[in-house]
């Protein structure tokens, strides 16, 4: 791996970690800026009932921005969510990159009790935009299929 390649891979890793960190802080308007103008956010889960993978949330950037901007208007689960990521496995080819990152999300109630909310993988496709990176696809593939509490927040 060349030095440039290493630097790119490191930047992509940091980018993925920072995306989760923005969710931890509920900085949602900054979180949507992680997407390329043609980017898509997707949450999927395999249904053992139907024998296929299903999208539970799939929106391209313009609609995603609208949905995210409306989050504060909803009645919400008061719990906080903390994302804990494994090291992203990254490959970079020119101006495109892919990442696979195991993650877990912990849910902490206002009273302080914590439970494991969901586990899964981020299966990401990124493009270089200027001097940085953006998601063309930020896909959340959930292992967990019975969620303890629904949320309008992205995962």
């Amino acid at each position, binding site marked *: 791996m060349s030095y440039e390649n290493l630097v790119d891979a490191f930047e992509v890793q940091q980018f993925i970690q920072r995306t989760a960190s923005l969710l931890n802080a509920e900085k949602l308007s900054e979180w949507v800026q992680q997407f390329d103008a043609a980017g898509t956010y997707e*949450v999927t*889960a395999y*249904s*053992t*009932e*139907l*024998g296929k993978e*299903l*999208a*539970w*949330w*799939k*929106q391209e950037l313009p609609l995603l921005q*609208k*949905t995210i901007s*409306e989050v504060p*208007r*909803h*009645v*919400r*689960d008061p719990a906080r969510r903390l994302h804990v990521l494994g090291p992203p496995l990254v490959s970079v080819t020119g101006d495109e990159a892919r990442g696979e990152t195991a993650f877990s999300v912990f849910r902490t109630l206002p009273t302080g009790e914590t439970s494991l909310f969901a586990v899964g993988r981020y299966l990401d496709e990124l493009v270089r935009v200027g001097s940085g990176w953006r998601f063309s696809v930020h896909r959340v593939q959930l292992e967990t*299929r*019975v*969620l*303890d*509490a*629904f*949320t*309008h*927040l*992205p995962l």
Partner: protein
Amino acid sequence: MQNPGHLPPALPPSHYLDNRIFTDPSIFREEQERLFSKVWQFVCHESELPNSGDFRTTQVAGKPLIVVRDESGSIRSFFNVCRHRAAEVVRSESGNVRSFTCFYHHWNYGLDGSLRVVSKPEGYERACLDKAALGLVPVRTESVLGLVFTCLDPDAPALQEYLGDILQPLQGPLGSVPMQVIHFHKAVVKANWKLWQDNNSERYHSMLHTINRSTQPWVLGKSSPMKLRLFPNGHSGYWSDGEAAVAYERGGYTNVTGGTLPGMRDNEMRVVNFFPDLMVNIRSNVVRIDRMSPIDEQHTMIEWRGLGVADDDAETRELRLRHHNMFWGPAGRNLPEDLIAVESQYRSMRADAVRYSILAREEDLNPTDDANLRAYYQEWGRLMGRSASAPFARDAQEVTS
């Protein structure tokens, strides 16, 4: 001194509920016997079993069930319990088999439930084991409009007789072209099952949803072309005979409702609540079906199915899914708010600080009338032999039916 929160409201008994019908474990056990073991229960959609040998497993009244399409194309159900030593014959939620072989000692059953093979049969010769009498135990199974129902009561009326005219608004969207389950998710909700049924029945709670406040013009008005509809056996619905469109554009949403289903008007909404626990909601191009499996009085497994047209092109399918997820997916606009509401109610009800809930709105069947809830609890009371407003009254005459 008595807790003033335990005093019933000064209303007719039909207009309030004793919250203990949601929290008392003995009432829950009675519901398993007197409701869920007696009435027709939706188990799946026919499209989940397209080929012979396709099966689904589920629970009805806490009993494990296999639903399977047999060689002749009929859909049958059996208890998912091996007649030998009671192991589960099927251990996955769906699949396709030529026959069912129990994993434990390899007894083998046909798709019609008959016991075909016992392993090492010579060991049963002296006891004269009669294989013909040891098939999987069958459960009554009937379908209508692609919806598969089972009933544990051999004496219950036929499915169509039980459902009656409540099927009429579903005839067009569910019965015109082959439909398919295109979305599925589930959750265990920390609330009594009836609170979920109530939530879907009462339109007053449109207040809860920011998107309904902005896109359903009839929510805040005094009268509406959308009307509640009451049917025998506790079934009810909510739809309009004339123009009543969801105003998506007022919420800033465009291009979500293409591919309107047969018999539906563009941007039309219909809601059908089958007694006691099945709900069908339609938003012009997509159908949502809620199926509940109560676990105990405080926990309810809810399955949500989204239905579209089986031979949709990719673009229309995408539109339906987007619309479905927008409202009714796990991160949809409405569903999380509904769950938060019923779990909040339930935490309070378990504390029994305030004992009664009020169903006293009378608005000539305009959407925010509580008439459908009152009719529902009247039927609940009839089947349970208890009044929903005074479930522990000694005097049977207090039963309001």
